[in-house]
């Protein structure tokens, strides 16, 4: 994991359990005059130092760098080495976002080539050809992080990337599991990577009024389920999981963190920007995941919420959980780690799934921080402000993307006896 709270899973996890807030003033570009000036940045990230072995990479975007370091940690931790996996039966499925544009060149060239009321295409072309770097341009394609990972580990099985906004890396992980179930792969490197902390990301989400403009103090801005919530804060990073067919993992004596047992995917089919007001898609997704996992709603011990801190998401997510879980809704803890990490967009879901697995392994539920004012419409147990010690065995992670894609994933303690 490469997150705003640390480079590496243990560092990020410890900080999450301590209720640490990664949100601060933006330093990646000069955002001092933008409506939103805060984000959760991955700081002190030195790719060249972190990368082990050969470094022949040229023009890598931030998202590919994050993905290479996160997958390096995951592959090592899984004990995958030459000879204990079949390259042709090893694939990659990421929910990786588009790479960051070369904004400096883009702004200057477009500015210089449009002094009158139109873009002078000859000037634009000449300006770009001289200022853009072809490798940096290529790296913006969203399939490139998955390609880098697969080249590095000689993963010659199916290689895919989805970009279903905030649901992307959850969907990638779910589909990667389905590829293993179908028998097309033994091992899938799955997860996501993204950074939208750039001028267009901030401006675009400002225009949609999805991110908060409550800049000061930065650490109070993101407040999922709180009455005074008014939008999210952008984060960035990458989370990668190694999914492996159970018998294959056992045969090579792998350390198994948990079992992925349920996946559900649906569309709201309602609006491009808003969730369905009654949570139709969210409810259907969770029910699909529960049916896939063959577990009853009461067996879920912890829900890692999508919890984006927007007025509508947190209200609808709460409504959906009540509809599905009935009385159990008030008994099952549900927290949003976005309160600490910001919203990693395409990379959010995989980050949250890893946190679910750590909660099972360590018996700790990370909190929803900045929870101060109770919203009568959000009255569940959001694990306010302080992490909680609790043994949890079956855990669900929700992801609801802009555009209406909904994904739910369920993981269970391993080994498990019913």
């Amino acid at each position, binding site marked *: 994991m490469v997150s705003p709270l640390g480079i590496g899973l243990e560092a990020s996890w410890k900080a999450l359990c301590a209720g640490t807030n990664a949100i601060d003033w933006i330093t990646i570009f*000069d955002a001092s005059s933008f409506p939103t000036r805060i984000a959760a940045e991955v700081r002190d990230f030195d790719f060249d130092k972190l990368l082990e072995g050969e470094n022949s990479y040229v023009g890598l975007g931030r998202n590919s760098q994050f993905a290479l370091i996160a997958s390096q940690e995951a592959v090592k931790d899984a004990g995958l080495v030459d000879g204990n996996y079949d390259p042709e039966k090893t694939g990659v499925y990421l929910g990786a976002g588009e790479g960051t544009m070369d904004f400096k060149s883009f702004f200057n060239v477009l500015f210089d080539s449009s002094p009158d009321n139109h873009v002078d295409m000859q000037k634009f072309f000449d300006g770009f050809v001289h200022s853009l770097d072809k490798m940096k341009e290529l790296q913006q394609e969203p399939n490139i992080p998955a390609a880098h990972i697969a080249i590095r580990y000689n993963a010659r099985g199916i290689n895919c990337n989805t970009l279903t906004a905030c649901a992307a890396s959850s969907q990638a992980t779910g589909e990667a599991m389905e590829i293993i179930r179908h028998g097309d792969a033994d091992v899938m490197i799955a997860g996501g990577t993204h950074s939208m902390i750039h001028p267009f990301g901030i401006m675009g989400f400002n225009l949609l009024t999805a991110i908060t403009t409550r800049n000061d103090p930065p650490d109070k801005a993101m407040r999922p389920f709180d009455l005074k919530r008014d939008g999210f804060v952008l984060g960035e990073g990458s989370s990668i999981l190694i999914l492996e067919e159970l018998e294959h993992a056992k045969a090579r004596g792998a350390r198994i963190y948990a079992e992925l047992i349920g996946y559900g995917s649906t569309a*709201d089919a309602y609006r491009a920007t808003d969730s369905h007001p009654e949570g139709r898609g969210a409810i259907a997704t969770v029910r699909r995941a529960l049916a896939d996992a063959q577990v009853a709603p009461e067996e879920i011990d912890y829900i890692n919420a999508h919890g984006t801190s927007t007025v509508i998401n947190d209200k609808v997510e709460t409504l959906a959980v009540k509809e599905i879980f009935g009385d159990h809704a008030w008994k099952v803890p549900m927290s949003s780690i976005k309160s600490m990490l910001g919203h990693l967009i395409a990379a959010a879901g995989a980050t949250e799934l890893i946190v679910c697995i750590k909660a099972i392994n360590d018996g700790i539920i990370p909190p929803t921080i900045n929870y101060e004012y109770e919203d009568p419409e959000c009255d569940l147990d959001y694990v306010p402000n302080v992490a909680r010690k609790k043994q949890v065995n079956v855990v669900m992670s929700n992801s609801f993307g802009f555009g209406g894609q909904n994904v739910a994933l369920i993981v269970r303690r391993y080994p498990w006896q019913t």
Partner: protein
Amino acid sequence: VDDSKLEMDKIDHTQFGTSLGTGLINSEVEELRSSIRAAASNGGFDIKKYGSEGISHLYPLWLLKYLPNMPACHISIFFDAQGPSNSITTGDTASIQAIGEGFRVILRKDADIMITGGAGSKINPLAYVQYYLLGKLVTEDGDSKTVYKVFDRDRKGVIVGEGSGILVLEELESAKARGARIHAELVGFGGAFDAYSVVGVHPEGRGIRDAMGHALEDASLSPGDIDLVIAHGLGTKDSDVAECKALKTVFGENGVPVTALKPMLGYATSPCGAFEAITGILAMNHNRIPPLINLDEVDSDCSGVNFVTKPTEVADIRHVLINAFGFGGQAASMIFRKYEE
């Protein structure tokens, strides 16, 4: 959807999904011009001024236009398709992977009907600069109808296309039960990766070779069962040579008839696989092979492949195989069977 004659009041909308191949949508420079000019300070661009002034020159839903999941989102809203929805963004391979995933979603009973395919356009100034920098584009003047050549000794580069191709996939029994007109049966899908370089293609075409092998295995067919291949046929040296080597490895020298569509339709990236899949199905149903145009002299490194360069009528095409692979190294292959009751 019209052609599929789906009756919207009779289908289960929760078992009706979307799986599209889309891609990075380049910023439209005309649209951004005024916001960027609003950031003028001392004759140059000033990010500080952009932050405060630029936003008022853009419309509220501006960001949405650039999200690759929006085509699938709009389709799901338009048809009230509440089942699984995915948007796969693997460049030239995207729509074949999306159709393949839609196929798998139906196989595992997560949906009865899937709207699949792809959409995209790279006819955009910024995309053109990027392709130019990568040395992909045709740059010399000539007859635009004949200049895009693939597998040809005198290839000049690619010409960009755009569009959308959509297929409605339906579980066979569900389609039969409602008396649907069945155009073809999707019988095999395979994906692979060439693990070579993000900018080049493995010289032996390892990725697409493996994808064809997986698709044949998935369909329980042998190479001899395939009657037509619609090649990726990109028209760059490394891609053409790699694909021909892969075709010869799988089908032998001068084996299966091979055609390619890009010289006619242009290089449309994310939707190109959907164009090719639909064309392959039409070729089967009409027993006609659309020609590989502009192929005047086969590149000697591409010899030994049975290219179909003229419109050709054949007795029967029972199985057609579609190839897609591209930048990055993703590869996918898909097999359709003529549907006979």
